[in-house]
């Protein structure tokens, strides 16, 4: 505590607050905690608890920020997460840090737990520290499970559905319990609300309470000394510390904690940036393929697969007891968890050193290897991998894999592929020339009933390859020729058809063609130059675009169709427009190519392209404007339309580029985090080095070691000693 002049305003204020709150006592308590002795030369593994606490703090911080923008309703949950990810400033970072934070915490807690097992730190008198710690791990897993559903995407919904379905296997009360947990017989919006409430209220409260208890017990009972249980109990904690020597918690342990935390933070920012969790598709009733839980649930997920009906066949007494095989598995897993929780009661041996606990070591190793193995099997099950020129396909139970020679079209080396990949969705893809839609969107048969009587094979073939057949709903015979293609009655089918004076069917001509095409291409109809029809020879849509084939517009029309006769008074104007269109095809084509690659970049990162809907609409309008202007036979109008097109495409390109730059800037954030973190680490490392050096000097001076001082250091020390 810094000295303060009595009567100074600062002292006065502090005394005023302290008198009313006991602040001084609190500060003194904190100071005592910092200076509390811990065993000397603790390994770095002792920083894992602090690191877990730090990551919990990160989860609380990022969780709060997500909570501000998240809406726990099935209608908007997905959209709100999408908005957090893509619209809110740094929302992507907070969301990814929160998602990755869960993995980091579970990892740190597992290593922390392994350390406790290694050092026998769960033994008397620290049983309750262990109990609180195991409960903390379970609460953390509860966080992971309840948080998984919140984005309300396919994976979230169906992983939760599979996870909660195990509750149904509990005899007698299972279905009721499941209904209570899910708020209905299935995972639904009701489940989302429940899990949200548990995730943001019940679990944080439990976690805070347990963390306080755990920390208080750690401080109260102290860090496990390197002596046997009996020695510690007989001589007390302070005496136990004497064997290894003691040092205050501050500064060495605090510095180490700080180093781990800052490096952990940088690592979290890095993975959050470079390996983002995909949001995927919004939740629906179509179960997606390859649903698997997060890695920390994989061992249990895999283990439960072995408890199926074949087990009942092998152990018929289970059937007599009306026990579901999966329930037996769940019972087994829960028994293991209960035994793990009660470890300090079950393992009452006096020794802490791992070498003096061979039975425990063997048991722990078996459990660790078994869990790891189950996790790996859970990961590979139902997937195929190509390795060394062979395809290994793992069955649902994980083993043995089916091995096949890889074909060039096989899965890429070292990468997993879902078994069901490659299975086609039922029904033919729509909108291809070779395979046009079987029916119109309104349910009418393709080409109506006209095709039943009128073959027109040549025209039909042209139409089938045209854009009119490829769009949905397609433009069919009756759309242009009139009549009724919804009836089998001959008279009714031909009612309203274009006919000549004798009542015979005839082709449309002149203005009729413009009117027919103009029903959809109304912008073109509005701006269609009168000169096309008025001057001789008159031209209609068919002259350039043909009728059933519907040729796509392009430069070729100006080069090969339309007005190729130089004597035609419209030819010069037509040619001028052709040159403008040619220039635009190059310029616009380049812009569209750039836009296409920018779009692909963003789509790969799941950016919601709906954000550009307004700009894209402008582009479409501009394109229609250009198309319409080319029919005016006035170059000036085409130039104006092209200017509009240029601006619209430029605006879209700019909007896409701005998002790409923002995504690209994330790398700068990661780099800056590492620079600052490493600088901080180096500073603390130098402090730790100095501490070590000072300790060694003292040991040498005290004659505890045979090492000799560096001449320079010795000189400095002698000078210090000579000082009065």
């Amino acid at each position, binding site marked *: 505590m810094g000295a303060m002049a009595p009567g100074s305003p600062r002292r006065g204020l502090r005394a005023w607050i302290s008198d009313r709150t006991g602040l001084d006592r609190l500060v003194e308590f904190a100071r005592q905690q910092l200076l509390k002795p811990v065993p000397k030369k603790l390994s770095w593994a002792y920083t894992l608890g602090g690191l877990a606490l730090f990551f919990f703090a990160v989860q609380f911080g990022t969780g709060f920020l997500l909570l*501000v*923008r998240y809406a726990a309703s099935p209608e908007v949950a997905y959209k709100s997460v999408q908005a957090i990810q893509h619209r809110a*400033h740094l929302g992507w970072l907070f969301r990814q840090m929160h998602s990755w934070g869960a993995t980091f915490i579970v990892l740190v807690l597992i290593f922390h737990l392994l350390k406790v097992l290694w050092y026998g730190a769960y033994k008397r008198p620290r049983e309750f520290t262990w109990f609180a710690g195991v409960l903390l791990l379970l609460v953390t897993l509860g966080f992971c499970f309840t948080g998984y559903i919140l984005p309300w995407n396919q994976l979230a919904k169906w992983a939760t559905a599979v996870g909660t379905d195990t509750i149904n296997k509990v005899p007698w009360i299972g279905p009721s319990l499941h209904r209570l947990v899910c708020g209905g017989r299935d995972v639904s919006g009701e489940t989302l609300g429940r899990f949200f409430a548990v995730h943001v209220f019940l679990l944080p409260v439990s976690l805070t309470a347990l963390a306080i208890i755990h920390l208080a017990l750690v401080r109260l009972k102290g860090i496990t000394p390197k002596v046997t249980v009996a020695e510690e109990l007989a001589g007390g904690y302070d005496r136990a510390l004497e064997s290894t020597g003691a040092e205050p918690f501050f500064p060495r342990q605090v510095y180490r904690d700080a180093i781990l935390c800052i490096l952990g933070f940088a690592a979290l920012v890095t993975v959050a940036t470079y390996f983002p969790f995909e949001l995927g598709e919004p939740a629906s009733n179509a179960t997606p393929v390859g649903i698997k839980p997060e890695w920390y649930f994989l061992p249990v997920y895999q283990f439960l697969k072995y408890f199926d009906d074949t087990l009942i066949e092998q152990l018929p007494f289970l059937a007599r007891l009306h026990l579901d095989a999966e329930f037996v598995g769940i019972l087994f897993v829960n028994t293991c968890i209960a035994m793990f929780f009660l470890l300090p009661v079950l393992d009452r041996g006096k020794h802490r050193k791992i070498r003096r606990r061979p039975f425990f070591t063997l048991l722990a190793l078996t459990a660790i290897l078994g869990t790891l193995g189950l996790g790996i099997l859970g990961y590979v099950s139902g997937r195929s991998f190509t390795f060394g020129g062979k395809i290994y396909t793992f069955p649902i139970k994980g083993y043995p894999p089916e091995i096949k020679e890889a074909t060039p079209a096989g899965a890429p080396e070292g990468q997993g592929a879902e078994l069901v990949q490659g299975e086609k969705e039922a029904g033919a893809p729509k909108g291809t020339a070779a395979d046009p839609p079987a029916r119109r969107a309104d349910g009418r048969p393709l080409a109506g009933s006209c095709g039943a009587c009128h073959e027109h094979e040549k025209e039909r073939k042209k139409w089938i390859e045209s854009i009119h057949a490829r769009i949905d709903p397609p433009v069919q015979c009756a759309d242009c020729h009139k009549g009724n293609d919804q009836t089998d009655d001959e008279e009714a089918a031909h009612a309203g058809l274009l006919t000549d004076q004798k009542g015979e069917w005839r082709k449309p001509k002149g203005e009729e063609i413009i009117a027919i095409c103009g029903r959809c291409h109304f912008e073109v109809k509005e701006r269609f130059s009168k000169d096309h029809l008025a001057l001789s020879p008159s031209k209609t849509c068919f002259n350039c675009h043909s009728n059933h084939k519907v040729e796509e517009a392009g430069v070729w029309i100006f080069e090969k169709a339309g007005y190729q006769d130089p004597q035609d008074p419209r030819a010069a104007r037509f040619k001028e427009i052709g040159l403008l269109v040619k220039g635009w095809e190059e310029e616009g084509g380049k812009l569209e190519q750039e836009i296409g690659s920018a779009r692909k970049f963003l789509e790969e990162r799941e950016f919601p392209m709906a954000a550009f809907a307004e700009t894209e609409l402008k582009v479409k309008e501009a394109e229609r404007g250009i198309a319409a202007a080319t029919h005016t036979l006035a170059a000036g109008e085409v130039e104006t339309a092209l200017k509009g097109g240029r601006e619209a495409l430029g605006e879209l390109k700019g909007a896409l580029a701005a998002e790409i730059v923002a995504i690209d800037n994330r790398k700068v954030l990661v780099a800056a985090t590492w620079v*600052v973190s490493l600088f901080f680490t180096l500073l603390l490392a130098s*402090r730790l080095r100095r501490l070590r050096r000072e300790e060694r000097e003292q040991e040498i001076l005290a004659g505890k070691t045979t090492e000799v001082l560096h001449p320079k250091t010795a000189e400095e020390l002698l000078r210090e000693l000579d000082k009065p």
Partner: protein
Amino acid sequence: MSRRRFQHASLFLIPLVYAGAFLAGALRYLLPLPGKKRLARLALQVTPAELNAEEKVARVDFNDRVVFVLANEGKILALSARCPHLSCNVRWLEGDNRFKCPCHGMTFSRAGIFVEGPTRKNLSPQRFEVKDGKIILIDEEGGA
């Protein structure tokens, strides 16, 4: 500054820089997202003639706020329903020919003039214009 002092300061500064950067990012994250565009102008269906003839008070929702449009002594008025006391929306009481706030009882005359209540302030006028016989409400911050 000596090397040791710089190191010492850095030990405190770096966590502060981190916390500051996180807080700055979080504050910007908390700013409202650009939402629905607000209208710059809204043409009302009710005409000045109708308001004058029927002496009625029209309640209009305009850019998430409520505006009362009425005729008072032959003059068209548009008043914001936001109470100048603590921002509740006042109500028009037909029988009393008064505006009254449901929160703390602020009462205003038909012209939006303070009658009684905790603070001596009038209802704010809402910008509008009459063009081609139509009343058009104007939001200066709208249309952006």
